């Protein structure tokens, strides 16, 4: 069972914190700080597994982490989860985020925390792994986002316009027209009638 999923940056600021067991707010913050201390001390070329800190349950729980650029992704798991499997899960999670946000960076996580939560909810539920297929997850998340947008009404208009332009598929304009040759190669322009 996964006890907690934490994302924080190199300075320890939390970017996402999801606990699958209840702690009160102070304890949650303390756990984040403690985990940051433990994980940031690690060298780059050591293994990605750590014993959990005192607050999170001590040596019965393991911290499995991966460091991507400026962010640490930490999963706190108990002994029923396979350590190498969780490493793969972190990889799948990050790849999913990458697909959803297009070259995800820390700012995306900062400004769209709720979306990250939604994606995570499609992957891990109640501390257990729900779905690991990236495409499946993205399909579901997209469908739900569409539902939200359809409800948004007028306030969502600017957002819809932006996404419409993104999805527009402008045909390629010809780059080179060979004047010297009589037979001008004119590409297949769509009929703008």
């Amino acid at each position, binding site marked *: 069972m996964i006890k907690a999923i934490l994302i924080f940056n190199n300075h320890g600021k939390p970017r996402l914190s999801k606990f*699958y067991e209840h702690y009160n707010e102070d304890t949650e913050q303390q756990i984040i700080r403690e985990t940051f201390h433990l994980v940031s001390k690690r060298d780059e070329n050591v293994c990605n597994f750590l014993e959990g800190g005192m607050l999170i349950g001590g040596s019965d729980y393991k911290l499995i982490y991966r460091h991507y650029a400026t962010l640490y992704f930490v999963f706190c798991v108990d002994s029923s989860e396979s*350590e190498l499997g969780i490493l793969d899960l972190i990889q799948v999670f990050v790849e999913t985020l990458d697909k959803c946000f297009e070259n995800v960076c820390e700012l995306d996580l900062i400004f769209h*925390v709720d979306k990250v939560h939604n994606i995570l909810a499609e992957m891990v539920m109640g501390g257990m*792994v729900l779905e690991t297929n990236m495409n499946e997850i993205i399909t579901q998340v997209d469908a739900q986002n569409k539902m939200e947008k359809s409800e948004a009404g007028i306030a969502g208009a600017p957002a819809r316009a932006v996404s419409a332009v993104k999805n527009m598929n402008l045909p390629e304009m010809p780059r080179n027209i060979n004047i010297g040759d009589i037979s001008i190669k004119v590409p297949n322009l769509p009929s703008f009638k």
Partner: protein
Amino acid sequence: MPAPIRLRELIRTIRTARTQAEEREMIQKECAAIRSSFREEDNTYRCRNVAKLLYMHMLGYPAHFGQLECLKLIASQKFTDKRIGYLGAMLLLDERQDVHLLMTNCIKNDLNHSTQYVQGLALCTLGCMGSSEMCRDLAGEVEKLLKTSNSYLRKKAALCAVHVIRKVPELMEMFLPATKNLLSEKNHGVLHTSVVLLTEMCERSPDMLAHFRKLVPQLVRILKNLIMSGYSPEHDVSGISDPFLQVRILRLLRILGKGDDDSSEAMNDILAQVATNTETSKNVGNAILYETVLTIMDIKSESGLRVLAINILGRFLLNNDKNIRYVALTSLLKTVQTDHNAVQRHRSTIVDCLKDLDVSIKRRAMELSFALVNGNNIRGMMKELLYFLDSCDPEFKADCASGVFLAAEKYAPSKRWHIDTIMRVLTTAGSYVRDDSVPNLIQLITNSVEMHAYTVQRLYKALLDDISQQPLVQVASWCIGEYGDLLVSGQCEEEEPIQVTEDEVLDVLEGLLVSNLSTPVTRGYALTAIMKLSTRFTSVNRIKKVVSIYGSSIDVELQQRAVEYNALFKKYDHMRPALLERMPIMEKTASNGPTEIVQTNGETEPSVVEAKHPPPVTQPTNQANDLLDLLGGNDVVPVIQNTVSTKPASAGGELLDLLGDLSLSGGTSPAPAPSVPTSQPSFFLDGLTSQPLFNDIAAAGIPPMTAYNKNGLKIDFTFERANPNPNIAVITIHASNSTEADMTDFVFQAAVPKTFQLQLLSPSSNVVPALNQGTVTQVIRVLNPQKQQLRMRIKLTYTHKGSAVQDLAEVNNFPPQSWQ
């Protein structure tokens, strides 16, 4: 009221804050705005406000006032609202707040909603934070959804069911019918969560386990399909088809196959196939292999398969990736008990891992190394482990040191090697060894009699180098106190003897007493050692001075000891040699039981009674054993008494079962536990009061008698009954000399008829001073079970005016009360 700012705006604002105080201010302002907006019951912006609240909650600020708002959002019809509402419920609410029960109805409605995403949200929230009451109410709905054909909902329902079972185990039965055709699904997501559900049920109930065993063939088939199916783009992760599902199935197979022959049979082939076919270049392959190995180890697999598994682990150990090595070491640790020989083959690789930079790997390698030590490889392994001890982090040193001690104790090839190893540990990691290692080591040294000289010499040299490591110092000072005479006499077979004078030794010990590095316990050891040397060395005056100085020490422990030792010098000087003799061999009552030893140090003897065989080499030939065997009548068998000179392993030990509770020779000792010395004074005094030694005429009303009076030597007997045993008569002889010259080398021997048993304790001294200036006293105990008339033959030898005198006499005039 202006529209509340968007979440994005808030985040941007907060990020501009430069100090914590600024951030707090901004957040408080926003919180106030949110609170007033909540009070206004504003429906349109509620979700925005709650989103902001959740963000602030993540940063660590209190957000409990948003809980009810979350509930309102959940009740709304809009999907956006519901989404944020459920997220808020998951983050802010839990079963400890009563508010959460209000959600139950909403969730129930949403579980039957027309939109699958709303149903999904409800399932997700129930599965994350549902309390047992909620679970009980809603379990029926979840079960219904478990049977639906919608795979999206089915997989969520499966995990929700797992949560329900965890919270309310009695409901497990309810989900049983729905699991019937879970495994025939094509959708991998559903398969995955179904396997999780089955795993949970099997772990919780052995009946379920038995029930699901019949699914093993189906699981094997699914696994086979996954491996053989070739490339499937939607489930592919780095070239392997759905590794997550494979790992889950392997885990379920492990649980089903444990302890069951048939299932294990069915699995053997597929496990071998997975083990050999999986690619190991990427992490995913290794994850599957790792799970396979764990499964092979747990079920009743055939030996070929097990060897294959351990070889895979061995290959892992050589992998460059630290993660792989870590998991390999962890699994080897689990299997070393059962497949010891197979793991031994990889010993050298494991020992190499000790040198790894990674702390987690080092720790596991160390534990595994200790598990692999056996009689054959002890020397090599110990070398590596000691090298590791030198260079490792402090957090390892304590565990490593204890491990080394344990291993050395079990497999030491020779006593000298054992002592060398322990000394090496003490010198390199002295301050990290556990407290119980000091008494253990002392006991070990006492037992290896032939090594005494070598040990004390080495310890002395170590002490000269460094006095900061307390356990080492304590052991060294104890040894010097005990065997100081061997040190000074310069006899050592194993090594080059060093030339040490008594003064140098005393210098070192006094240095310990005054040094700032010594703890109070160490000082106690040092003082006692100095005291013991007073019977082994000749320069008693210096010792007397030291002891008297500490009589006014601030440390109560030291003061008490010094005062007692002072008293020993002044008033009870005749008892000093007996008290400060060599310690007998200590019997270990338990392998880890230092506490027994501690007691025996103080009281010395009750448990030593069993150790009745003192090392034969260093003993005078006729030992106390002869006590009991006396010829009757006219033959005088010299009964051995405890000699004044210090011979190792005093005879006092064995005699004590006769003595019962009176144990005079309770040797002073370096008792680490402070409680023991406090018992000593009363003990000490008990020895005095119950044994009237001097001029106190015997209690019990038996009149004293003169046994011998010739040539100026007069011997008086005084009597007493030993309380617990009325058959024992305690006789104290007082020898006095009325001539002008001292009688030196005075030895008193006695013999009694066969029906009696005699025991002689050590005399107070062997010089009877001239002109009745003092007396030599000695205690005789006679056991007279048949209450026959006491008769005794005595033999006296002494040197008087340069010539040796010997005399025999019979004593028949014992008063009747002494033997009735």
